C-alpha cells in the first residue's frame, strides 16, 4: 500500500500543472466571449455614466490586459484565493462552498443509482440474453438514453408530484419545515428522489448497455468455461466470475463521465430548483461573472482529477494486472 500511496501522491502532483493548464485555457476562452461583468451590471443597474463604468472596471481589475489578469488570477490561486464575486458581494470561495454540497449530494446519489440500476439491468439483460427481459431492458434503456433529462424530469414531476402527490415538486427541502435530524434527512431524501433519477437514468441507460455487452463478452471467455467446469451455478458464475471482469469497462466509462455529469447536473438543478452549483455557474456565464465561473470550473477540474484517481484505485482493486504508476 505504501507504493500505492507514493503513486497517488505522484499522480496528484502531476495533476497540478494539468489544473493550471485548464485554468489558463478556460480563462482565455471566457475572455473571448463578448461583453464583461460590468456591461451586464451596468445594464441591470442602469449605470449611465461611462466614467463610473471605467471606475468599476478598474476596481474589478478588468481594465488590465488579459495576460496580466490571468497572471493575477493564477497568483491568487496559488495563495488559495479564488477571488471576489462582486456580483454576490461575497468571496468566490464562500459562494461556491455554500452551493457545493447540494451538487455533490445530487451527483453522488445519481451516480450510485446509475451504477446500481444500470449495472443490474445490464447483468440481468446479459443473463437473460435475447429474451423478453433483455428486450424490455434494451427498450427502456434506449428511451432513457434518447429522452432529454429535463423532459424526463418534468414528466416525473407531473406524474409523481402533481398527479399523485407523492413527492415534493422541487427544491431540496421543505421551506420552513422544522425537523429533527432524522426528519431532515428524510425530507431531503424525498426531494432528492426525482432529480437523482432524472439525472441518473440517462447514465443508467448507458451503463446497462455497456454492462450487457461487457458481460456477454466476458461470458464467452475461456475462464468462464473453467468456472462452469468446476460445477459452479450460473448465478455464481455471473456474479462472481463474469461481473468482476465485466465491471472494468463500466468503471472506465464512469471515470470519463464524471465531468459530463457535472454538466448534466446544470440542467437537472435548473429543472428541480436544486440549490447546487450548476445553476450558479450557468447564471455566472450569462452575466460574465468570470471569477465565479473560473472558481467553479477549478473546483470541477479538481473534482474530476480526484475522481479519476479514485477510479484508477478502484480499477486496480478490480484488476490485479493493472498497477498505478
Amino acid at each position, binding site marked *: 500500500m505504501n507504493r500505492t500511496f507514493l503513486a497517488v501522491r505522484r499522480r496528484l502532483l502531476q495533476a497540478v500543472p494539468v489544473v493550471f493548464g485548464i485554468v489558463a485555457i478556460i480563462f482565455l476562452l471566457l475572455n473571448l466571449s463578448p461583453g464583461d461583468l460590468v456591461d451586464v451590471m451596468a445594464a441591470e443597474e442602469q449605470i449611465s455614466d461611462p466614467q463610473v463604468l471605467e471606475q468599476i472596471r478598474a476596481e474589478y481589475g478588468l481594465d488590465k490586459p488579459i495576460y496580466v489578469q490571468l497572471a493575477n488570477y493564477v497568483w491568487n490561486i496559488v495563495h488559495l484565493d479564488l477571488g471576489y464575486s462582486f456580483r454576490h458581494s461575497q468571496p468566490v470561495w464562500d459562494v461556491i462552498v455554500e452551493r457545493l454540497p447540494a451538487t455533490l449530494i445530487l451527483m453522488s446519489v445519481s451516480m450510485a443509482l446509475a451504477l446500481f440500476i444500470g449495472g443490474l439491468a445490464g447483468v440481468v439483460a446479459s443473463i437473460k440474453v435475447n429474451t423478453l427481459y433483455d428486450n424490455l431492458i434494451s427498450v427502456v434503456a434506449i428511451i432513457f438514453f434518447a429522452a432529454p433529462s429535463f423532459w424526463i424530469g418534468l414528466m416525473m414531476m407531473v406524474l409523481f408530484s402533481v398527479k399523485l402527490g407523492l413527492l415534493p415538486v422541487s427544491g431540496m427541502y421543505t421551506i420552513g419545515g422544522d425537523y429533527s435530524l432524522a426528519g431532515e434527512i428524510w425530507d431531503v431524501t424525498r426531494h432528492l428522489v426525482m432529480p437523482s433519477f432524472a439525472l441518473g437514468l440517462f447514465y443508467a441507460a448507458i451503463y446497462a448497455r455497456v454492462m450487457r455487452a461487457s458481460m456477454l463478452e466476458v461470458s464467452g*471467455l*475461456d*475462464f468462464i*468455461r*473453467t*468456472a*462452469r*467446469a*468446476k*460445477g*459452479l*451455478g*450460473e448465478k455464481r458464475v455471473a456474479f462472481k*466470475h463474469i461481473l*468482476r*471482469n465485466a465491471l472494468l469497462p463500466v468503471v472506465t466509462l464512469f471515470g470519463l463521465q464524471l465531468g459530463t455529469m457535472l454538466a448534466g447536473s446544470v440542467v437537472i438543478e435548473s429543472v428541480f430548483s436544486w440549490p447546487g452549483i450548476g445553476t450558479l455557474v450557468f447564471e455566472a456565464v450569462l452575466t460574465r461573472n468570470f471569477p465565479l465561473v473560473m472558481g467553479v470550473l477549478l473546483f470541477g477540474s479538481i473534482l474530476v482529477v480526484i475522481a479519476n484517481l479514485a477510479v484508477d484505485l478502484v480499477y486496480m482493486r*478490480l*484488476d*490485479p*494486472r493493472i498497477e498505478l504508476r
Partner: protein
Amino acid sequence: MSPLLQVCDLTTHLFTVEGVVKAVEGLSFDLDADETLALVGESGCGKSMTALSLMGLVPDPPGRIVGGQVLLGDRDLLQLSEHEMQKIRGNEIAMVFQEPMTSLNPVFTVGDQIVESVLTHRQVSRRQARERAVELLDLVRIPDPRGRFDDYPHRLSGGMRQRVMIAMALACDPDVLIADEPTTALDVTIQAQVLDLLGELQGEFGMGVILITHDLGVVAGIADRVVVMYAGRKVEEAPVDDIFASPLHPYTQGLLGSMPRPGLEERLREIPGVIPSLIDMTPGCSFAPRCAKAMARCREEQPDHATIGDARVVACFAAEEEVAGRGLAVDT
C-alpha cells in the same frame, strides 16, 4: 465389471444459420478406471465438442446434444438436470483446458480459484480448503506452493498455469479427468513435464483419463487406448500398441505417416485434401474424398463399426476386406 464411463451413440449438433453442423455423430466408447483413453484427430473433428458434451457444457445456442447416452456408473448424465450436473462437474468429472493463458480468471488469485473448486463440492471450512489447495499446488510440483497461493495468474508462466489448472481439476478427486489438448499451447520441454505429471497423477488418483489431442506423439507415451475421430465419427479404436503397430483405417495410417518418428528415415507424408464441411455431408464415408483406397461403395454407403479381435474397432470397407483377407474375424 462394467466400465467407469460408457459413451453410447453420442450425437451433438450445432444449429447455425448456415445449417446444422454435425459436430459429433454417433460416438461410442468406454473408459475404465485407471485407464487413459486418447481421443485423436485433426482440429475440427469433434474432439473438443465430445469433451464439452461429456461435461454438459455444450454452448447452447448453437449447440445441443441430440442423442445418445453418457453413463457414469448407472446414471445417464444426459438425463440429469443442470443442477444435478453441477454436482458432477468438477467433482466426478473434471476437465483441463487447452489454453492455460486464458483459462484462469485473471482477477482472482490462483489459490482462491482452487479453494473455490474445493468449497463447491466439499463441506469443509475455508481453512481446510486452503490447506487442500496448498497440498494440490504441491502435488502438481509447483515450488513454494504457499507463496504462489496468493499470486494472480498473470504472474505465472504457461506451464505453471497449466499445473494450476490440473490442481484445480483434481481438487475433488474426480473419477474421470478430461484433458483437452493440455500441452498444445506449451513449450516442448514443458509439454513433456506436464504429460509426465498427468501420467503420474493418473496412477496416484486411479482416475480414468480422456486425453484429447491431435498429436499422436503425445498418445504414444501416455495412452492405453486410442479412439481416432474423423468428421465427428469414430473411425478406429484400438489399444495404443496396435494403433502404432498396425493401423487399420486409412486415416489413421495417414496420421501416422504424417508424424515424425525416431528411427524412420522416410519422408513424412501428408494427408491430401481438407476436412469436409460438417454441414453438407456426403452420403458415403466422409474420409472417402481424401482416401487413396476409396472404392465406389465408400462414396455411397457409410461403413459401420466392425469389431476386430476383442479390442479393435474400425469403420472402413477397405480395412474390413484387408483384415478378412488376413483371416481375422470381422464382426459388424
